[in-house]
């Protein structure tokens, strides 16, 4: 390889290969994604954020929140709960099937399950067990549903009900996935911490609401001003060391409000095709779509 031209061609080839494989291909796979109707919530998902929240994302980006906070939930697998939703007419047959499905049940428990449907037959089982039980009940007239429960430390921590998927970020420009968890994950913070005042206090100084936090304070998002005719309605309720001097109050700037709007808009509280889970909002209704007869 002692010729400049051969070197040029080989590097060019490698470059084109890399470009095609790692830039074009993802673009082809993901570039045409669009919103879709999620049956469980009965509307298109994801929705574009509103005006203030959109402005808030700019402040999130400018302050570099992404340096310490990720916006992605990991999931290590699934578990299923098997629920007898409808016992049907053949009570005897169904009772024997339930005892076959869960051999650890006493006859009384079995009878109670069949009598009080919908009731849970088995909790936290794997896919092969689900297949076996669904097969048992195939022609019994009873209905058994397998409810999906995502597993993983992030989900246990309450950082989100399911894993995040590409669809969740469709309208994010830029996508702020983050790569480090110096602070907690924020992809579902809007449904975890719903109190606006809490967020404002936390931004003003994290120690007002969270002992031992190492998040920086963002006092520049607030304004300390003189109380004129009376205290402002949006003044922060600061106490102790944090309270402003006598006759002064701390009010959030529009930027702080926008940032909090953005944080509150971060929610992934609905299942999507790629990441299903048992959705409880409309459990009362008959048509429960998150129950899958044939789970993926």
């Amino acid at each position, binding site marked *: *390889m002692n010729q400049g031209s051969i070197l040029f061609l080989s590097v060019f080839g490698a470059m084109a290969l890399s470009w095609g494989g790692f830039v074009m291909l993802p673009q082809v796979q993901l570039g045409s994604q669009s919103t879709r109707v999620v049956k469980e919530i009965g509307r298109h998902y994801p929705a574009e954020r509103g005006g203030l929240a959109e402005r808030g994302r700019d402040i999130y980006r400018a*302050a570099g929140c992404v340096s310490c906070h990720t916006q992605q939930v990991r999931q290590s697998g699934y578990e299923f709960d098997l629920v007898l939703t409808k016992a049907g007419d053949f009570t005897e047959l169904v009772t024997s099937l339930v005892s076959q499905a869960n051999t650890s049940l006493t006859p009384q428990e079995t009878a109670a399950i069949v009598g009080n449907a919908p009731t849970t037959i088995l909790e936290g089982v794997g896919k092969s067990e689900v297949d076996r039980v669904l097969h048992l009940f195939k022609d019994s007239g009873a209905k058994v549903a397998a409810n999906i429960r995502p597993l993983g430390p992030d989900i246990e921590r309450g950082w989100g009900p399911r894993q995040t998927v590409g669809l969740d970020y469709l309208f994010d420009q830029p996508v*702020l996935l983050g790569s480090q968890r110096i602070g907690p994950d924020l992809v579902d913070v809007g449904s975890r911490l719903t109190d606006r005042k809490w967020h404002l206090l936390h931004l003003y100084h994290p120690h007002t609401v969270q002992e031992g936090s190492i998040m920086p304070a963002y006092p520049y998002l607030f304004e300390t001003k003189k109380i004129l005719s009376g205290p402002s309605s949006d003044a922060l309720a600061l106490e102790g060391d944090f309270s402003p001097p006598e006759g002064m109050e701390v009010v959030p700037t529009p930027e702080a409000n926008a940032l909090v709007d953005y944080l509150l808009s971060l929610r992934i509280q609905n299942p999507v095709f790629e990441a299903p889970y048992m959705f409880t909002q409309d459990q009362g209704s008959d048509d429960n779509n998150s129950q899958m007869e044939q789970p993926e």
Partner: protein
Amino acid sequence: MEANQSSKSTFDWTDIDASYRFPTLFLAGKAVGWLLLGTIFSLIASIKMHAPGFLSSCSWVTYGTMMPAALNAIVYGFALQGAFAAMLWMTMRLGQVRLVAPGFLFIGTALWNLGVLIGVLGIMAGHSSGHAYLEMPGYALPFLFAAYGLIGGIALVTFHKRQVRELYPSQWFIFAALYWFPWIFSAASYLLVISPLRQVVQPVRGVAQSVVDAWYVSGLNVIVLGFAGLAILQYLIPKLVKRDLHNAYLSLFAFWMLLLFGSFSGILSSQALPSWVGSLSAVCSAFVAFAWLVIAYNLFVTFRGGATKSAGLGLRFMYCSLGSGLLVALLTAWASQEATSQVLQFSLFVPGLKWLYLHGFVGMGLLGGIYLFLPKVTGNDWKAQGQWTIIFMAYATGVILFSGALLVGGWKHGNMLINAENSFVEVLRSGILPFIRISTAGELLIVIAALLLWWNVMVMVCRTYCGCLLSMGGCGILAAGGSKQLPSKTNVKKKS
């Protein structure tokens, strides 16, 4: 096949070195300046971890702006600029050719520094783009493109005009790095940061942005900075131990492996991305690690039994650089495995690897390069050899403390994160803070090393400029004759 650098001892280098004297002083001087600034930013960010109230009233210096400002200052200001300087010098030396158009190189360098300055200030002002390694706002990028057009163009023309037609392995790496950078930089910044055709062309949407960004980061690290560093190692180690590179075919093999697989390594699988991204990246990382092992073996055989005793400080820089680069490649391959990536994904391990690569591999290589190149190019010896030993010790210890603490802490941090029984405050208290403390101490040492380095380079710059002015004033030599007269003047000084 043994590759030799065809540098016959009888060849007169003065003319070639003289053509590069002031450009390299400019490039290297600016590069160490950015290193100093970047490490100071990074130290400020690090202090904020212990004292969240520190400098908190100003939006320009929050942790979230200081970190990317530090990264961009170090990557674009120090690492890339230093790499340009080193690659240009090696191109000239290996090709036995004078630098073409030094004047344009001055303009290019000035533009580059202006671009980085605007970019870093833009990040601090809150205009960061939010994409890793591409945080610089769109309005800084035209300067960088124009600057690279000049710097890269000059390098390629110099390469083309070489007197020695046969290529030494370092030259492949230099050529590939110079060629790769503008492509990935323009593609990624066009797709992510600036798109003048936003209204016409559909911008990259959703997580595809993250894939493009990961591709850019990997290409920049493994191929552009990596190849520059490897070119330095393969050029300087044989020179320092006075032996030929053991086997050029091994180099060629590693070159191809890195070129084919380097642009997609080190991406830890993320469930927000398509699953093939993580798996493919794990495979690429393994190939990259293998290529690194081949290079390390090749260089090890080269310096084993060579004149290592007399090689001095320069070789120690090279050892550290080679060791860090190999370690990062192996750790990246290990961390990309499905099981380990689950643990290490969002932990301190990731920045630990990043800084070990930037300071340990690229930084050590460039510092060694500066230590060895500058006296040759300027004809002035370093005034304070002792200070260089301090720079080396402080930098090496600093890098070990800084990235070592993050790597070890990352393992604990990650393990605590995947066990939901540890509350997040506990994770913070025992999985993050103790290690950040140690890493801050490391950063302090790096700042000291950078400060001393900057001082030494500035002294060198002043001495060379003064020497030049004196000789111009004394003898009235200007223009054409000047460049040929200068080295002899300085050489005489050195001897006397």
